[in-house]
């Protein structure tokens, strides 16, 4: 299948609001029509081809190249197709996304997958703050789908998330799972402080020791059956989740009792 290739030719000097760049919007358009689409350079109304070389047309497979760290809202509310980004990408990548696939060979800004409902986002580099989080004021963050960050992530990963899966490859910062209402967060190399603060439900799995808040209650050590199934799925995504009793077990902490919540933090302890 053909590909639409967008290569940054002129780096924006201020933020470029590019919510128009989604497979849904571009799939039926000719090259000429794509070039004429509106992006906002700060408050100025510009065309896509003011900033990008556009090659290809009529496809829901998008490829973007260049230092895109000021380009925001790419893949907003997309429901199909794919976007592959070679370079760093700005804030709100895949916000409100409903389906499809985004892959970033580089770093991503804040709010990756903010309030997404479904779909798949894989960032091979670092991510900023509020991965899969609720926007300010909203009651609910991510409500389905999968986000994988290979490197580190900023604060408030999965804030108020309801469903879905977030995997952070290296250490995340403070407040992972803040006010979480459901879903799963896997921390391959742990997190900074206040993990699970105000969490109501949901599961945070850490493969290394975590500093826990006093409002989490130790409630035994076990090897949950669901992790056996889960690890199979994660293996497809390239993540190894230990589950065998012969290798170790998970210490379970229930909380956050300050809310009071019924969430759990599972911390892997090798035998």
């Amino acid at each position, binding site marked *: 299948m053909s590909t639409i290739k967008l290569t940054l030719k002129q780096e924006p000097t201020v933020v470029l609001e590019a919510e128009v760049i989604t497979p849904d919007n571009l799939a039926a358009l000719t090259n000429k029509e794509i070039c004429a689409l509106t992006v906002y350079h700060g408050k100025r109304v510009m065309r896509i081809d003011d900033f990008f070389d556009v090659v290809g047309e009529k496809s829901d497979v998008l490829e973007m190249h260049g230092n895109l760290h000021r380009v925001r809202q790419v893949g907003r509310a997309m429901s199909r197709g794919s976007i592959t980004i070679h370079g760093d990408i700005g804030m709100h990548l895949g916000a409100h996304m409903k389906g499809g696939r985004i892959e970033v060979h580089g770093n991503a800004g804040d709010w990756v997958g903010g309030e997404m409902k479904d779909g798949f986002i894989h960032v091979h580099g670092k991510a900023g703050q509020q991965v899969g989080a609720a*926007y*300010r*004021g*909203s*009651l609910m963050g991510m409500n389905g789908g999968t986000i994988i960050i290979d490197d580190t992530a900023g604060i408030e990963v999965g804030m108020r998330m309801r469903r879905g899966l977030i995997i952070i490859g290296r250490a995340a910062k403070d407040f992972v799972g803040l006010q979480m209402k459901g879903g799963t967060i896997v921390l391959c190399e742990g997190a900074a402080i206040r993990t699970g603060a105000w969490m109501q439900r949901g599961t945070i799995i850490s493969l290394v020791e975590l500093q826990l808040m006093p409002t989490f209650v130790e409630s035994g050590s076990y090897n949950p059956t669901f992790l056996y199934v889960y690890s199979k799925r994660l293996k497809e995504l390239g993540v190894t989740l230990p589950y065998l009793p012969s290798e170790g077990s998970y210490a379970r902490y229930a909380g956050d009792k300050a809310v009071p919540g019924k969430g759990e933090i599972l911390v892997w302890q090798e035998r």
Partner: protein
Amino acid sequence: MLKITGGQIYDPANGINGEVRDLAVDDGKFVDTVVGGHTIDATGMVIFPGGVDVHTHVAGGSINFARAMTPEDHRRTQAFIRSQTRRSGIGGMAPTTFATGYLYAGMGFTTVNEAAVPPLSARHTHEELSDIPIVDKSSLVLMANNEIMMDLLEDGEYDRAKQIVAWYIWASKSYGVKAVNPGGVAAWKYGKDARQLTETISGYKNLTPGNVITNLAQMIDELGIPHPLHLHCNDLGRPGNVTTTLETMKHLEGRRAHFAHLQYHAYGGDDWTTMKSAAADLAEYFNAHPNMTTDAGAVLFGDTVTITADGPWQHLLYKLTGRKWGNLDVENETGCGIVPYTYKPSNLVNAVQWAVGLELLLLIDDPWRVFLSTDHPNGACFWRYPEIIHLLMSADFRNDCMKQLPTNIKTRITLPEINREYTLYEIATIMSAGPARALGLNNKGNLGLGKDADLVIYDHDKDIERMFGHPRYVIKAGEVVVEDGDIRGTPEGREYMIKPSFDPGTDDFLRPLFEDRYCMSFENYPVEMERIENPDIQECIDVE
């Protein structure tokens, strides 16, 4: 100069019910005839006096707090993009100031009454009111939990208290007095509420909510304020509160009073599981006592944000919903609580509330005494009024809507048994002529000679919501402000206020109390006249 020819006129203030007449406007007023000028051919169209909202919350600290607390609504709501005639803004649950003016005018409303202003945020309120274009405005100052006034009433110093109330009205540049949960908001500062009229208020030895209500009503009558005491009763929102409401009405027998958002005060039952409508009982009493007026405070299903000076109630609502809660204590004056809320048809309590609002509008016989309101934004946003008009004008539509309610609602409401359908004449009464008369704004809600030329022209349309939601023309003070759904002009509205006379020594009495109790200095407290854009000081009246 403007001529409007051939329109079918509904002008309840002059008893005109659908007659075809011509109207002439000169210099913002209706006149006999004009020569020359622009002519609007309104043949086949319906003409109403411009709408008057007797109870709404559109400016000041509380609605602004609500705006700040609901960014999630801003992202999904209608945006007003700046144009040649319009400033930018957003609609939604708590519209911004400019958008408020556009939305009200866009639906044919030309006068609004901001119903709750703490004196401390009066300056802020007036700044926002001056940014609400097109419509004329008035505001009511919150008095029933004012510590200085309550202390005086406790000590039996009625006359001094009356001077203070008059002083506060002028200091706030208000048009009248609002009482919210008298004594209850003061008690909230002790973590309590005041739900019974005869129980002593926390922090006082003798004073009861009943005392506060009757004294305030008497003061307002003696001061000759055109709009009577605007009362948000005690015990709002709770099952079984109809006894408190009836008790309050009995306290005010023989006096003028306006009962705000009566829907929230008309519940029977003992608790949330047995809650039912008591609108029929309340309407029966109300019908027999012509001293009172009310506005419905009707509820429509959907998202909104509730804001009120009733701090204790908002805390309870927050506990019930588990959603966001904002609380402001306004020093010694009043309180304020904000809780975003969603009314759901599947929820039995919400379903009862929805029915009660409509029942009150339908069971109170006299349209001159019950007015269209949602207590914006508490029951629903004001831009949803056309939905209520549709519900009032069509029993079939009501029955359709009732199908989505829980099946066990039938024993709790009387709405299914009511067949009354409002006529256009009655709609014109409850949305314009009635509230204008209750507010004492004699030039409003009236198409008679010499009155303000505020009117709205609708296309006849079987779709009632479309008809009332999208007027063909809206004319404010003789200027066409809306035509075919477009804002054509955005003139500044006036601000109505009242200057009751008070003892010139009141300043000297208040100054030491201020220095003792308030965070700001006395000199900075009253709103200066220069702050008000287009002020219009109304005369006090003689009340029998």
